[in-house]
């Protein structure tokens, strides 16, 4: 067997140029596969992180009717809020979670200085509690974080650019109260945030919860409670909270996980991932065609030699194995080269990352919650899969032409030119 392996390794250098082209095809396939896999996983993890940190928290509690209307139509019905939310907080509070109340409503924001106007989702937050659940405070780019009971607003950097506002500018929030009457709230821009979540940066503004309660006639109601757990695995916690709500006669409330809240973009993300893997599959098929070509040619060009080796007493299974080893050897060299380059490219992606702001700055929803630089993820399985596939595929591909060659009569093989 060792002799056959040595023979196979010698044979791959028989046609150097063809072999090198095949190595390169395999290597490029591996590099693209591990790079794309790392990138997509990076996009996904980063998106999940940014979705939880800036939008969904781990679990949200809503009035069921509010949640249904928000999910189906995108309307935020202030008259379907959570009454006596402090009691809800008391019921669900444990040492392992942080909670915060919020009021979310739709509004139009007008720059009082120049008159520009844009639609926004405005969220009333309790500054001291909110920072334990969401990451707004850490993303302050200029100005400062909100204070309780001030007519101040924090908006995202992309929104600030669109509205052409800066710290100290006045904005008018045009909306409707809980009783559907028009309301205009004048607020000063106290902070501009630069969150790594384009949805937040583009179209969400934050004001103090007290102001929202008062100016929207909420009478103490809020629209949601955000809950932060110690880790992302919150299924048991979700069940516990749902049970607690039911057993305390709060069946009109619903607890919703971040997975449920993000199901639209998670589906989109999965679709994009599947699409990307199809592209990778096509690249792999192109590489495989190169390998098939190499193996077919290397067998069919050696029919006479195969006949001679059989005449010298080489058994059919030895010939078959020598070509399987030859295919595997080509795959092995391609895999080693591809994995080394893949490691280098991916190391750059994992530790430094690539800037994707050209996509996020286009003012369109790309599905992912990412901004600027996104780092990749080490996924040893993708390297192992790509390398194994690269070695096994040429080895298996070589079986067909080899079988064809050894099924020929020896005398016929020897007559081949």
């Amino acid at each position, binding site marked *: 067997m060792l002799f056959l392996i040595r023979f196979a390794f010698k044979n791959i250098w028989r046609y150097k140029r063809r072999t090198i082209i095949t190595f390169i095809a395999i290597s490029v396939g591996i590099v693209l596969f591990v790079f794309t896999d790392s990138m997509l996983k990076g996009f996904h993890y980063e998106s999940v992180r940014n979705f939880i940190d800036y939008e969904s928290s781990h679990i949200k509690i809503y009035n069921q009717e509010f949640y249904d209307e928000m999910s189906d139509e995108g309307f935020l019905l202030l008259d379907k809020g959570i009454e006596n939310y402090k009691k809800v907080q008391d019921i669900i509070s444990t040492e392992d979670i942080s909670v915060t109340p919020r009021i979310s409503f739709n509004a139009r924001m007008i720059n009082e200085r120049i008159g520009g106007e844009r639609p926004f989702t405005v969220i009333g937050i309790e500054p001291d509690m909110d920072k334990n659940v969401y990451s707004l405070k850490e993303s302050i780019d200029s100005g400062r974080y909100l204070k309780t009971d001030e007519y101040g607003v924090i908006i995202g950097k992309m929104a600030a650019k669109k509205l052409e506002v800066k710290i100290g500018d006045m904005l008018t929030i045009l909306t409707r109260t809980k009783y559907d009457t028009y309301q205009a709230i004048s607020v000063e821009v106290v902070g501009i945030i630069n969150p790594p979540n384009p949805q937040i940066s583009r179209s969400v503004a934050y004001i103090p919860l007290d102001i929202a309660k008062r100016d929207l006639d909420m009478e103490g109601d809020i629209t949601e409670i955000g809950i932060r757990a110690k880790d992302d695995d919150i299924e048991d916690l979700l069940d516990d909270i749902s049970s607690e709500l039911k057993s305390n006669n709060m069946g009109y409330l619903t607890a919703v996980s971040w997975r449920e809240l993000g199901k639209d973009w998670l589906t989109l993300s999965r679709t994009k991932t599947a699409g990307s893997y199809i592209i990778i599959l096509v690249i792999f098929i192109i590489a495989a065609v190169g390998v098939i070509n190499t193996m077919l040619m290397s067998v069919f060009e050696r029919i006479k030699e195969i006949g*001679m080796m059989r*005449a010298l*007493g080489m058994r059919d299974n030895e010939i078959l194995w020598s070509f399987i080893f030859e295919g595997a050897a080509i795959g092995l060299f391609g895999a080693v080269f591809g994995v080394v380059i893949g490691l280098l490219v991916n190391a750059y992606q994992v530790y430094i990352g690539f800037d994707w702001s050209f996509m996020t700055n286009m003012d369109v929803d790309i599905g992912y919650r990412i901004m600027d630089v996104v780092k990749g993820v080490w996924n040893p399985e993708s390297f192992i899969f790509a390398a194994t596939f690269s070695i096994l595929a040429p080895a298996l591909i070589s079986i067909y032409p080899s079988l064809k060659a050894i099924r020929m009569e020896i005398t016929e093989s*020897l007559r081949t030119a």
Partner: protein
Amino acid sequence: MGALVSVLDLKKDYKVGETVVHALRGMDMEIEAGEFTAVAGPSGSGKSTLLNLIGCLDTPTEGKVLINENDVSHYSKKELANIRRESIGFIFQTFNLIPILSAFENVAFPLSLLHWDSEKIQNNVNQILKDVGLEGMEDRYPRELSGGQQQRVAVARALVKEPTIILADEPTANLDSNTGGDILDLMRELNEEKGATFIFSTHDPMVMDRARRLINLKDGMIHSDERK
């Protein structure tokens, strides 16, 4: 003690399209160990077919081929491969060396198939390369050797495992007459020194002249069989 090779009422038919070609039409002959035999005859007379059957590369339509009194006519592919591997050496008209292997490696190839240990391979290959006049050329690749030198490598490859029979299919056909003569002298020396049995197919009068036995074929039958 019987003959090394016995051919009994040997027939071989080929189908070419709808036509059946009778390559051998019932041939009987014996070859003793140590003979230096040329099989001659015009194209289509059955020379190559006879060598292929003796060399276990093909199986007869009818009749028997006995090697060392063993009837190989109905052996399986694997059994035939084993006989070729252990007992038969081949020399081809077009040398048929493996281009990616050096002269040494080409000669060592049949020994590797027999799983000889590397020291024994080293000794035998070096000795036979010396015997065929290629000492110092062990590391050369076929492309770096002349036609005559390549055929010497092929002779060494056929002889290195000390087979019972060496079959040579027109071994001088691709060589100029001087080189062909040298190769024939070499094979005759090896026949005399080592007692190796050679069977050639040939058109070449020089080969016929130097053979100690000349079998002439015509239309798939033995036309004449002359020992010198």
